[in-house]
């Protein structure tokens, strides 16, 4: 299959030109330095946005567990947040924030495309992750909650010591997948003018009319992502095994 594809591509009439514009050794050598410098920003964004999105998501999922009519508005607001930002395409959200916020000319609010782009990523991913957490929380059997309350734990303590530890364990693979996705999506911040790896590739491509830089940067992202996805897969398999073994609860 791959071999067939390889011969189809390399045998195609446009291949000699394509090879030069996408796979030039010269341009590949030139982009590595700027791309790596740009990649540092992508990794920083991954770290900062990943951690903030996780924290925000946990808070959102927590708010959604609060019972009673008093908390109805809170539950509805968090549900609306999740639905809204999960439905909104990330690129649209990014464009709105990166170009909309500076347009408002608010004092004390940054126009830095890195921070604004990071905010968009955080908002978007917190919605996805909140949903992961919620699914995890709901997968914990109600009898666990009953047992915790029977001991005298409060609702908060029950969540903290009994429900969340079990829920989080179950959603770790899903969260890792989100982080992988986030890692790739940090490449979108170049839209606002932040110089990340993708932007570095873009600059070189625009200057040279050669697209090798995109290929190189793409491969860099792949190399970063593969180990993490492998790890997530391995973790998922291990947890499935554990769950079928320890069938109690």
């Amino acid at each position: 299959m791959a071999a067939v594809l390889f011969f189809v591509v390399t045998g195609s009439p446009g291949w000699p030109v394509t090879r030069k514009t996408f796979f030039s050794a010269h341009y590949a050598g030139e982009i590595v330095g700027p791309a790596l410098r740009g990649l540092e920003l992508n990794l920083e964004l991954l770290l900062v946005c990943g951690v903030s999105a996780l924290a925000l998501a946990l808070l959102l999922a927590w708010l959604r567990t609060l019972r009673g009519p008093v908390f109805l508005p809170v539950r509805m607001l968090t549900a609306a947040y999740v639905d809204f930002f999960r439905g909104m395409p990330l690129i649209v959200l990014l464009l709105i924030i990166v170009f909309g916020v500076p347009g408002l000319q608010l004092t004390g609010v940054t126009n830095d495309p890195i921070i604004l782009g990071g905010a968009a990523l955080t908002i978007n991913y917190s919605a996805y992750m909140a949903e992961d957490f919620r699914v995890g929380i709901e997968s914990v059997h109600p009898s666990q909650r009953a047992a915790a309350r029977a001991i005298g734990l409060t609702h908060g303590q029950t969540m903290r010591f009994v429900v969340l530890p079990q829920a989080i364990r179950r959603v770790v693979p899903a969260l890792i997948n989100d982080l992988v996705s986030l890692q790739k999506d940090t490449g979108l911040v170049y839209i606002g003018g932040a110089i990340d790896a993708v932007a570095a590739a873009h600059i070189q491509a625009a200057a040279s009319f050669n697209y090798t830089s995109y290929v190189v940067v793409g491969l860099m992202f792949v190399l970063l992502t593969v180990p993490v996805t492998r790890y997530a897969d391995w973790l998922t398999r291990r947890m499935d095994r554990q769950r079928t073994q320890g069938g109690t609860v």
Partner: protein
Amino acid sequence: MTAPVLRFESVRKAFGEQVILDDVSLSVPEHSVTVLIGASGSGKSTLLRCANLLEEIDDGAIWLDGEDVTDPRVDADSVRRRIGVVFQAYNLFPHLNVLDNITLGPRRVHGVPRAEAERRAMELLDRLGLAAKAKEYPDRLSGGQQQRVALVRAIVSEPRVLLLDEITAALDPELVTEVLAVVRDLKEQGRTMVLATHEMAFARDVADQVCFLADGVILERGTSAQVFGDPQHERTRRFLSRLSEAGRL
């Protein structure tokens, strides 16, 4: 007779149209064992759940040590702290080892320092021959062992009354004995208990007071000898004779 530890006063509980408990009154004296018997669906579990405020009653009152715990102003968590519960399905926390399962309540609810809580837990485990399992996770234990751990978890904070809901129903027959032996031991220690069970031989042996429930009403009550030896009510007689035919009496 001493003042009752737990008292139900004309308790009524309905789920929608369906009346589950109808005008149930019951006194549980200190150091006594009350056994609830009755067909499946007669309301035994519901009665116990109401006592622990896991269900809200519709009418009547429940008194714990002279305090009306069904008063809406009463803090339910503080009531549950004084009541120990063991469930049919053990409901141990699967992410905590045996020792942590037992000490979670004392440490988080009663503010007992870790070392002290663990010392106390080990004492109780030792007594039940489970000291070697202290660091095991629940899924590595047999059902009987899990249920004995659940018993330790329920008594470690010295509850005023212990509620046991068919705690041997999920166990293989050969494991039932080891759990019932613990309950006998608890009776010897003078603990106040209310238990629902289908183990009639055991009920007969351990009960100070037997209540026969039918359709949410305590149809007959008395000492073990009275209810099992000389049942007054036709339905009690039928219930007991069906059980003895099935060889369970």
